């Protein structure tokens, strides 16, 4: 079976800086795969290239058998890919409800959109209580919930998450990870970029480890958790 997302030889450059130096990566339908690595490893650059925010210097990206290269950013969601960007990227002066509505911007099935909105409010009760509040006034964790909910509102085939745990208190991190697990358990394909390796490995089925712009290691999440190199470098043991 061919993968839902297939990346081959991906390179990302910023002027003279090579941030991603030719990586291969694939994610199958229904999988929760994590990409872990230290600061500056090139994780965000990889995701931004996948979502068209950055133009890759080389390599191919295939999603559902369709090449993504050269596709304008705004067609990504129609193709079935939703990115929850690093730092959440909520629209601060739009209300919670308006942010969620933006997630469904390209959808025409208004009745279904309304159902999904109720589902999101069920999934994230805090957002329900704050539906008419400006998103900029939410706490970091609430904003992360909103960003995830907003991405789900587009009914993507695959979710790309860039460090959803960033800057959150441990309890909130647990909550966010629980939501990601639940979404994945319901059948969503997920690529989770994380610095919090332990949590990511506990949630994911497979993992890629990124170092200095290259994939240094990849295996099942379980094997990674038990691998001495991963343990030493990423799990602080």
């Amino acid at each position, binding site marked *: 079976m061919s993968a839902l997302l297939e990346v081959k030889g991906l390179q990302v450059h910023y002027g003279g800086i090579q941030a991603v130096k030719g990586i291969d990566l694939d994610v199958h339908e229904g999988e929760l795969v994590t990409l872990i690595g230290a600061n500056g490893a090139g994780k965000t650059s990889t995701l931004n290239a996948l979502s068209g925010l950055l133009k890759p210097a080389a390599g191919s990206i295939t999603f559902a058998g369709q090449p993504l290269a050269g596709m304008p950013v705004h067609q*990504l969601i129609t193709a079935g890919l939703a990115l929850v960007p690093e730092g959440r990227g909520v629209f601060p002066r*739009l209300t919670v409800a*308006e942010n969620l*509505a933006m997630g469904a911007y390209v959808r025409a099935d208004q009745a279904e959109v309304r159902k999904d909105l109720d589902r999101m409010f069920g999934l994230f009760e805090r957002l329900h209580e704050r539906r008419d509040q400006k998103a900029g006034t939410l706490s970091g964790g609430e904003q992360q919930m909103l960003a995830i909910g907003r991405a789900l509102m587009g009914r993507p085939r695959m979710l790309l998450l860039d460090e959803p745990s960033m800057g959150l208190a441990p309890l909130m991190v647990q909550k966010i990870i629980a939501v990601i697990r639940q979404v994945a358990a319901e059948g969503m394909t997920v690529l989770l970029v994380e610095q919090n390796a332990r949590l990511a490995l506990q949630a994911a089925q497979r993992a890629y480890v990124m170092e200095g712009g290259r994939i240094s290691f990849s295996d099942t999440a379980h094997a990674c958790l038990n691998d001495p190199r991963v343990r030493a470098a990423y799990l602080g043991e």
Partner: protein
Amino acid sequence: MDIFLQQVINGLVQGSIYALVALGYTMVYGIIELVNFAHGEVVMVGALVSLSVIERLAARGYSGWTVIVIGLLLAVPACIALGLGIERVAYRPLRKAPRLAPLISAIGVSIALQQLAALIWGRNYLHYPDILPKTQYAIGGAVISEVQVVILIAAAVLMAGLWILVQRTRLGRAMRASAQNPAVAGLMGVDVNRIIATTFAVGSGLAAVAGALVGAYYNVGNHTMGFLLGLKAFTAAVLGGIGSLGGAMLGGLLLGVIENLGAGYMGKLTDGAVGSNYSDVFAFLMLVLVLVLRPSGLLGERGIEKV
């Protein structure tokens, strides 16, 4: 006669025209952080296109508001096309350039449009034919003309319409989202380039109406008329808080009233030493004052509704 009330009425009329123009500045600034210095010239083109239409119709014996409306039916699409063209040719290629580049480009477009208009309409002051009713209504010691009433109503309707568009529609939501975070709006499926173009189109349409109203109100048009009007409207936008829709409306009205009150009382206060022709100075002094005391403008930052 109640001078105060009269100047307030005149000020609100003039101010609602400033506000219509200021909305164009503020919307474009809100979405791409560019001061579209060519915007005043779009107003000028709106005024002169409608003038051409009105002249021809008046020459055939038509008169009344229908003539103005027909003038608008041509001026609005002409200005929308012009605004879209300016965005596409002068600004979009410079979207990622240093901020100074589009600013210079804007000034270039502004000069080019003035010269082009001089070629088409000549360099003389053109006068509008006398086609509008001269009816006046008395209110509490002051008078308001039918033209003034129409301007106030037209501006109010347009501003309410714009408010609904921006706050209550899917397009408006996409405009606000694109202003706040264009990259993420793109991820949601918004074609941000199209939203930016739409913003220019809306602003230019309002500019066309403002131009036609200004022409009808003051009965005069010229290829340079966009300069001072544009500057005043930009001042109004900054006064209200650039990027804020409510700010542009408030700033416009306020500037109009201040100017007219200033003009009305200046001579009296200074015993004739300084006359009403100093009203521009008064307006810009007010701007300096607001910027010193509240750099983000009256409604800037807090409660901002950027588009």
